């Protein structure tokens, strides 16, 4: 669902606009709408989520109607239409991962972070959610963290703890 309560006004930087232009150049003349998914990824990497204002500006940039952006952004699960934690831990919850302990790992993440699936920790640092098959079943259980979608494989409780602690430290030093 689109966020109506929260809306972050954005001003795309020149660097970002250059990346948009580079993306649009990949497609034939008049087919700039093909750049929509790559551009939404760029915007989300920059701001952490897709506010209505950001989507409206993407629509204006691509010369399409805002609804064409909303319907796409709400269809694909990778796009966040609500603000999330700085680090979103996305753990695979599909069959093969569950054969080797993904459900136990999800419970552990919930306990470790102290928030339910989809919620944000009080310090604004973390969210987590179960996602569908990440195509890494041989290295299960697995989780990923955007915007670079770094992978963490063969998870154990210890590895999760270590990862969360490292991210907390990283956030403090920045």
């Amino acid at each position, binding site marked *: 669902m689109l966020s109506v309560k929260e809306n972050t006004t954005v001003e795309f930087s020149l660097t970002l606009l250059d990346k948009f232009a580079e993306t649009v150049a*990949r497609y*034939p003349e008049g*087919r700039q*709408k*093909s*750049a*929509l*998914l*790559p551009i*939404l*990824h760029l915007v989300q990497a920059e701001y952490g989520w897709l506010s209505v204002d950001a989507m409206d500006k993407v629509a204006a940039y*691509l010369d*399409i109607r805002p609804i*064409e952006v909303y*319907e*796409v952004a709400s*269809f*694909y*699960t*990778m*796009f966040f239409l609500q603000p999330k934690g700085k680090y979103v831990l996305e753990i695979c*919850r*599909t*069959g*093969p991962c*569950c*054969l*080797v302990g993904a459900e136990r790992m999800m419970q552990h993440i919930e306990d470790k972070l102290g928030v339910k699936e989809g919620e944000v920790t009080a310090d604004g640092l973390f969210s987590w959610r179960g*996602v*569908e*098959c*990440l*195509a*890494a*079943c*041989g*290295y*299960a259980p697995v989780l*990923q963290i*955007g*915007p*670079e*979608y*770094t*992978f963490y494989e063969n998870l154990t409780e210890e590895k999760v703890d270590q990862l969360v602690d490292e991210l907390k430290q990283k956030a403090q030093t920045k």
Partner: protein
Amino acid sequence: MARKLLLAHIDVPGIHTFDVYRQNGGYRAVEKALRTMSPDEVVEEVKKSGLRGRGGAGFPTGMKWGFLAKPEGVPRYLVCNGDESEPGTFKDRFLMTHIPHALIEGMIVSSYALGANTSYIYIRGEMMPQIRIVEKAIAEAKAAGFLGKNILGTGYDLEIHVQPGGGAYICGEETALLESLEGERGNPRIKPPFPAVAGLYGCPTVVNNVESIAATVPIVNDGGEEYAKIGIERSTGTKLISASGNLVRPGVYEIEMGLPMEEFIYSDEYCGGIPNGKRLKAVVAGGSSVPILPTHLALKTANGEPRLMTYESLADGGFVTGTAMGSGGFIAFDEDQCIVRNTLNFTRFYHHESCGQCSPCREGTGWMEKVLHKIEYGYGDISDIDLLWDIQQKIDGHTICPLGDASAWPVASAIRHFRDEFEWHILHPEEAQTRNYGLVTEGVMSSE
């Protein structure tokens, strides 16, 4: 040792770089095809090879290429399907991570054969690291003169672009993928027209899986007939198998078609058996969509023949006692796994991934999930089994794309082969919360 065509050099340090790939014989197929063969001759070799689509459907690649319409003055496109999302499948991720130039070389050869001057590699968005790797490989190949204008001085021009997905299983279906590439929701299109006639931007388009495209490299290098010598019957060449679940050594293996499944599971050259001394309960041989088989039907066909890793042998017995090669996503279940819980998990997956266009799939997957949830958590009624059977029948074959079928088959096969376990779950709701049903050996419960 089995022959390897795609992963022959996988252990060479630095094989992901252009220089090392080239030193190990890389890009010879591009030189051979562009300098000594016409596009039609390349198509002919792929036809002779008997290569079948490695994404799941197993449709002959050469024949698919042969259907491509070639109207004057209209661009043609090759689109690589790297939206690998079928649960149990991770071979394309492996290939793109470790030997990305095999994909780029295959893209150049295939684009040349099809007369495409712009080609796209659609990679699922979660694979951002692989997107970066493939983009780097494209840049390296371009710097070396294998991409861009007038490749190797032959007059052939080609640009390859990478397109990220957005997290949607449905975009692995080729027309949904094209919709997504055009910046739309991933709703599959009604066929006909097939992409070969009206695909990307309404132009003739071929969509091929990552592994199929990479396989054109050895086919061009050694000739289609050489490739077809590997394998059995209409299952030629080698296949990447993604092995997961309860196995000593899960991972990606390149097998020669025809390998007995028993050898694949238990031999030390492959998965090394089931960990912790457990027994094998069931196998999903080709990704979550294909029918699940209990061990006795996985290792041997209903006629008692050894089950081989070929399209034909896996399908022996149809969906009554057989299964399908699918994407080669091989999932092993040990004796402690619960079939009801796994069926619920897979069904939840299909419900989540249904695009919502066709009501049998949109509503049916949700109903199946609810009924399975009820059984798994101890509120099932014995009539729910027949209800599930009824729902899956009403989905199967009644939707625009195969996602509906894919959601029906795991449910149908689980009930067909593990009905006793469903009944036990329903009749012993409290016990089912604390322990699993155990192993079934040809219909006999062995754990009691």
